[in-house]
């Protein structure tokens, strides 16, 4: 009577992980498609890889690249600094500050970046002179706006203000993701509000902020290419300058693409490091860990 039971228990002890044949098929199929694409790209003479190599580090291209990176860095840092202030305003107890923050986000998220750039570039039509002074009092400084706002300045202003609106929402989402009990614990310990925000809430919020912020940074890096319309001499503008002369459109677009690709890759590395840093203590410090195990399934 006990024999069949014992047999079954034995067979449970031999339990093996399930095989997943479809996963292999899908993986191999994906690899084949990738390989075919690479072969066709390498073999197609229209890509003119020798031209790509020749222009990749040309002075004009590198100058454009420098403008693109500078614009991205300024707009990203300025945007997130302003965005953090806006997010804190939005979450403050003051109705007035909340409304101002909301209004800012509403406005700058609604206006297309292209429209904004054109507006700032042409600001001298609205405000011909820029003056610094006491309101209704003496003037300290009076300058023509046209001389101050060139293509680069207009791009910096437009991109930063645009970026801040998006950053505000990203930061606010991050701050909201931290439990209120953390703030209470800090208050009970007598920490001031700024200290609580800086030491307790923001570092924890960063876990939720970094991934969308990296998205935003990548979008911004490529988005700077719109400044070519106001004669901002960025990467795309520079390669356009070249192919308008020699008609080598595709290889020069590839030059730009390769540079964008390189810096978004670099960005991914930075993102990985930031996630690892801010994930400390969360039990998922190496963020590659859970990501890989998600791909591999929970059974491994």
């Amino acid at each position: 009577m006990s024999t069949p039971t014992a047999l079954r228990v034995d067979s449970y002890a031999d339990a093996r992980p399930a095989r997943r044949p479809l996963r292999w098929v899908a993986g191999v199929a994906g690899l084949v498609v990738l390989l075919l694409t690479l072969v066709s790209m390498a073999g197609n003479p229209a890509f003119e890889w020798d031209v790509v190599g020749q222009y990749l580090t040309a002075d004009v291209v590198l100058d454009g690249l420098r403008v693109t990176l500078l614009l991205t860095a300024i707009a990203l840092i300025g945007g997130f600094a302003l965005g953090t202030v806006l997010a804190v305003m939005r979450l403050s107890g003051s109705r007035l500050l909340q409304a101002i923050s909301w209004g800012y986000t509403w406005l700058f998220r609604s206006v297309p970046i292209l429209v904004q750039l054109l507006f700032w570039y042409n600001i001298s039509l609205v405000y011909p002179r820029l003056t610094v002074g006491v309101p209704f009092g003496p003037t300290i400084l009076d300058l023509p706006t046209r001389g101050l706002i060139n293509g680069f300045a207009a791009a910096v202003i437009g991109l930063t203000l645009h970026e801040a609106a998006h950053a505000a929402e990203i930061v606010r989402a991050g701050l909201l993701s931290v439990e209120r009990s953390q703030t209470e614990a800090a208050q009970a310990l007598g920490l001031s509000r700024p200290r609580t925000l800086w030491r307790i809430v923001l570092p924890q919020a960063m876990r939720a902020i970094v991934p969308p912020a990296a998205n935003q940074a990548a979008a911004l890096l490529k988005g700077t290419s719109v400044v070519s319309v106001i004669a901002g001499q960025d990467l795309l503008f520079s390669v356009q300058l070249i192919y308008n002369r020699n008609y080598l459109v595709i290889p020069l677009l590839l030059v730009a693409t390769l540079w964008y690709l390189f810096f978004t890759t670099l960005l991914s590395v930075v993102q990985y490091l930031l996630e690892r840093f801010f994930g400390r203590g969360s039990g998922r410090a190496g963020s590659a860990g859970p990501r890989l195990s998600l791909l591999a399934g929970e059974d491994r």
Partner: protein
Amino acid sequence: MSTAADELAVATGEPRTMVRLIQISKAFGDVAVLDRVDLTVPAGTVTCVVGPSGSGKSTLLRCVNRLERPDSGAVLIDGQPVGLIRRGNRVIEAPPRLLARHRTAVGMVFQALNLFPHLTVLENIVEAPVAVQRASRADARARARELLQRVGLAHKERSYPRELSGGEQQRVAIARALALRPKVMLFDEPTSALDPELVGEVLSVVRDLAAGGMTMLIVTHELRFAAEVADEIVFIDRGRIVEQGPPATMLGSPREERTARFFATIQQR
């Protein structure tokens, strides 16, 4: 004319009042959670607040360090009102900076502990002394290590809270609250997050603190725990103190029928 009791009080040094709640009221919407509560905790004693869930006992505790702002009334810690200042003839709310300073006289151990997950055990403890009391980092570290030694976690200072067991986390939370050298310790349901066999551990930590002269106010629903640590048990129901007394009297022969009924239902479980 002096009575024998008065003479005794002078001779032994009548304990000064450490915590005093004066007419504390708090309503959430239409629900009165606390209704003109008066409570006094003498220095160096342990008071346990018991009562059914929703009776207002946690809110009472949170009013002591003003995490919950009472609608009216005041809390005095060693004679100092928490979060209130006098302006001429009127009492008004203190600015945030002053409230923060008042709060450092009160250590609190939360029900969910609320350790800072992104900081190590040592950093959790060092944060407040450095930020609030302007202690040097070295001094704060030395003091933190001493506290960790006392709760038996000296070897865990580099760990993150999540790497510790529930009991260890609680001891870190206690050490963190003690780092500011508070005059009073508040515990919100200290046994509820623990496995039953760890209750004895909390008990011994609380006893050690009591032996060191710490004044404590503890919210709990574990009557046995309360009976073991408390000098005074306060029974609260529907936002009012129903009765209070030493554990033996309260558990043995409560005056109020409501108290007896509550104790009976609790002990059945």
